[in-house]
């Protein structure tokens, strides 16, 4: 086997036992790795409640990690989300993926519940579950500092995960996060604080010459992409560059999505952040894009989604509080998008958004589940709003807080949010790429025309990228065609772009089927009413009307038809069989 390491580990935290098994070649070829393999392997257990000790967590790498293929060191975690109750995968970028493979494993499956706070150490084939009382209660930064050793990579949770906050995250090496869906809470429910991995193995490649050629082709394409390599591209500015863009396109979520333009954007944008904190690049293993930006002290600067949700979404133009709340969310182990979304819902309900400094103090209140607001808001905006009788103020899909693109400014994104298998997420499909960023071509952002098929294809493409664990930003320069050539070079097994799209389709369909088994259907593929009833912030030149509901419904039905689902959004049996998704 080339690319894949051929082994996995299954660990039972209840008694600290483990089992090393062989990666099934057929499954690996059919689902690639990461998201796809995780969803496939856990599908039978997805009816278990998220905090039940029997609930497994999958943590997996992909076949390209550890090879020279650019931007391929992401890691995937699959579980059932306590926030959305859907099947949930989340990806983070960093060294863990490569270290896991160097230790000889493609993936881990973790079950059970440790009796005391514990951590897992993996060094080559030595695997140990050990108590870690001293780390329990510590923030992410001090946990990483305590466990850090040469050649190791660390996953850990902060206090929010320990207290099972519904949107608690898992950190990788203190730099990046498995942000969404509350994976950190599932770790907390298992008394799992951290995993440390190191290894000395290497990943074999079938055809190095051909891989070098693909790598060189990809580099040319990345260099030609203004979104990546341009003056304001991710390489130079980081994702924060998008803040000015969403504002100028009048699709920035402001005051809990009640407006789409924020006059104070110039006070909190990338240029201002750089002026105050400085800016330097942080590069993930093997990544030429280096989109992460750190300040001169070595702290991560807020990314676009975080800055937008901690800022305009909460009517906050205080750049220092945005910076501090972001740092504290990272240290406490909280998803900044869900935190920002929940706080905005709270602000609108009270008819008064909290101030910048109050926002920072709420990070701790929620992470520590402090009695009162802290404890109730830790459930996320959907449950909080329902409890307080204001469901309409929760800007969520399937319980997941919507990210920083207002759907009234990008109709493809509206459909993408609604049908996303893990809830309100911009990364299942990413129509913003063509609706706003004009790559590879521009589409009319105020039209549903053709969007049903486009969303389907993008979902397939992204599911495939999440399973190869290639960074999605790579797809904004190069494409799935180059990924297929890379996979062929690494594994020696012939794949073309259409094979990868077919695999992606299989994965999305399987996720949708798992959700349907848990009672999800068309009733859950819907956007908050606000978007159909209220306009965005228009100006003299650009009108932002409410979404046309009838057209949305028609496009949703087209999507179901193209995806192979019935009118209720449930996959048809014959489609499950023909796609190879299985049940």
């Amino acid at each position, binding site marked *: 086997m080339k690319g894949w390491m051929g082994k996995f580990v299954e660990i039972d935290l209840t008694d600290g036992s483990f089992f090393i098994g062989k990666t099934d070649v057929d499954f690996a070829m059919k689902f690639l790795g990461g998201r796809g393999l995780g969803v496939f392997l856990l599908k039978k257990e997805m009816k278990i409640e998220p905090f039940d000790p029997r609930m497994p967590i999958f943590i997996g790498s992909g076949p390209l990690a550890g090879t020279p293929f650019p931007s391929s060191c992401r890691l995937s975690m699959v579980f059932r989300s306590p926030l959305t109750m859907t099947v949930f995968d989340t990806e983070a970028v960093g060294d863990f993926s490569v270290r896991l493979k160097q230790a000889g494993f493609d993936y881990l499956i973790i079950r059970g519940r440790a009796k005391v706070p514990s951590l897992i150490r993996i060094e080559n084939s030595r695997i140990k579950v050990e108590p870690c009382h001293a780390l329990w209660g510590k923030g992410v930064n001090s946990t990483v500092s305590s466990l850090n050793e040469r050649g190791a990579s660390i996953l850990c949770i902060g206090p929010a995960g320990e207290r099972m906050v519904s949107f608690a995250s898992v950190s990788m090496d203190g730099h990046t996060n498995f942000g969404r869906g509350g994976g950190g809470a599932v770790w907390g429910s298992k008394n799992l604080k951290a995993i440390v991995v190191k290894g000395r193995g290497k990943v074999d490649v079938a055809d190095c010459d051909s891989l070098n050629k693909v790598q060189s082709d990809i580099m040319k*394409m990345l260099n*030609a992409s*203004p979104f990546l390599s*341009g003056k304001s591209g991710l390489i130079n*500015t980081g994702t924060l560059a998008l803040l000015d863009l969403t504002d100028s396109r009048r699709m920035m979520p402001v005051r809990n999505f009640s407006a789409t333009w924020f006059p104070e954007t110039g006070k909190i944008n990338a240029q201002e952040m750089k002026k105050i904190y400085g800016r330097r690049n942080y590069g993930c293993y093997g990544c030429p894009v280096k989109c992460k930006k750190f300040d001169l002290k070595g702290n991560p600067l807020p990314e676009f989604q975080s800055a937008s949700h901690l800022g305009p979404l909460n009517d906050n133009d205080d750049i220092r509080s945005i910076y501090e709340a972001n740092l504290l969310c990272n240290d406490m182990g909280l998803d900044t998008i869900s935190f920002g979304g929940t706080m905005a819902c709270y602000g609108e309900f009270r008819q008064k958004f909290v101030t910048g400094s109050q926002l920072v103090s709420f990070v701790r209140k929620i992470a520590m589940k402090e009695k009162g607001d802290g404890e109730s808001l830790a459930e996320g905006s959907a449950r909080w709003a329902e409890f307080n009788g204001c469901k309409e103020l929760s800007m969520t899909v399937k319980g997941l807080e919507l990210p920083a693109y207002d759907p009234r400014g990008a109709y493809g994104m509206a459909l993408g949010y609604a049908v996303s298998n893990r809830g309100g997420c911009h990364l299942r499909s990413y129509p913003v790429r063509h609706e706003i960023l004009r790559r*590879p*071509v521009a589409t009319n952002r105020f039209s549903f025309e053709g969007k*049903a098929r486009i969303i389907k294809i993008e979902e397939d493409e992204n599911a495939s990228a999440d399973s190869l664990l290639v960074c999605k930003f790579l797809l904004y320069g190069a494409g799935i065609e180059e990924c297929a050539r890379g996979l062929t070079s690494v594994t020696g097994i012939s794949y073309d772009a259409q094979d990868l*799209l077919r695999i992606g389709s299989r994965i999305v369909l399987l996720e949708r089927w798992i959700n349907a088994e848990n009672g999800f259907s068309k009733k859950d593929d819907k956007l908050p009413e606000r978007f159909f009833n209220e306009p965005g912030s228009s100006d003299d030149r650009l009108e932002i009307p409410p979404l046309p509901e009838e057209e949305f419904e028609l496009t949703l039905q*087209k999507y179901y038809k193209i995806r192979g689902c019935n009118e209720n959004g449930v996959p048809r049996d014959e489609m499950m069989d023909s796609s190879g998704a299985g049940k």
Partner: protein
Amino acid sequence: MKAQVEKYFRKLTERNLSVPERTAVYAIDDEIFYMKGSNVVFPWENLFDHLTIASLIFCTPPEPLMTIMNEVTRDISNISPEDCESQTYLHDIPATDFDDWEGIVKMLKERKGGVIKGCGVIAHGSITVEQAFINVSSILHALFIKYFTDFALNEVFVSKKDRVKFKRKRLGVFENIFKNLRALPDSTPRLMCGTFENKNEIEEAMQEAGEKIVNLGLVDSCFGNISYRKGNDIYISQTSSFLDELNGCIEIVPLDGSKQTAITASSELRVHLEIIKKTGCRVVLHAHPKFSVIMSLLCEKKNECNFDCRNECPKKRFVAGVPVISPGMLSKKNQIILPDEIRKTQSMIVFGHGVFSCGEMDFNEPFEKIVQIEKKCRDKYFKMINF
């Protein structure tokens, strides 16, 4: 979808990329929309059963593109393009036979498009019909450049014996192609006179220049880019915008970096900025005139030099009186190195890519320069091969 299909059917024929009777344009959402010429009988729509795509175009190019396509793909099934754009986005261009259905499906599974020998070009898009159109146009542009570059390389740069053999076999075909080449106009159209004081004027002038340069056939896929500097702002065409459809596709980028709107500006914004800085001009126009590209590829020192022309060229080289620069000099991360001579010539040719020209007042100056450079390159080409 119907409107998209009709638009690109029209565009293919208006831009002389396809013969209407032999053109088929398809788009699919939950059902297939199509428009095809009377002579298209093959059911290309069956390809949707094999491919996860959103659009498909089959076209038969008119002369001389048809003969060029046949010549380039005569004995090979994989073409390596010479021009930078095609190298970057297409990598290579596959070719297969009309009666090889499996081969056509395989070709389209692996690549964005390709050549069906003796028949035409086929390409697809995963988002819109526009993508398929761009792929068709890029393939034809790449084949044109490849044909004339290879012909000159055989004619000028190989041994006399091989040259005679080659010439005897292919000269008749070449004459035929030459006969059908589109002539450049004797005079260039007049454009709005500058300088321009407000946003509306600037955008109107940019749209006019963009449209007219496309009409003269001086860009590939209607691409290229255009900018106008006004105070602290540069107005520049957005990335992936068609020069003949710039309405609503112009980005205003502040030069002091106070806003990051450059993220959707043309990928060549940095080159535009550097040209403005070096020359003091306020107007920049970039196009891909074919013979300028071809002549940039035909360096006289080719056989005596070990440098990779695409990365770096240590020699000063001029074509049609303007400097030729390696693309590598424009893609350095921290620095763009332009030749000093651009201050005087106000134009430069990027090796295998296209021409940048600038002006002080309005688009008349760079427009005229690009047309003149292309004329000189074309004359020089045919003189070089003694034709």
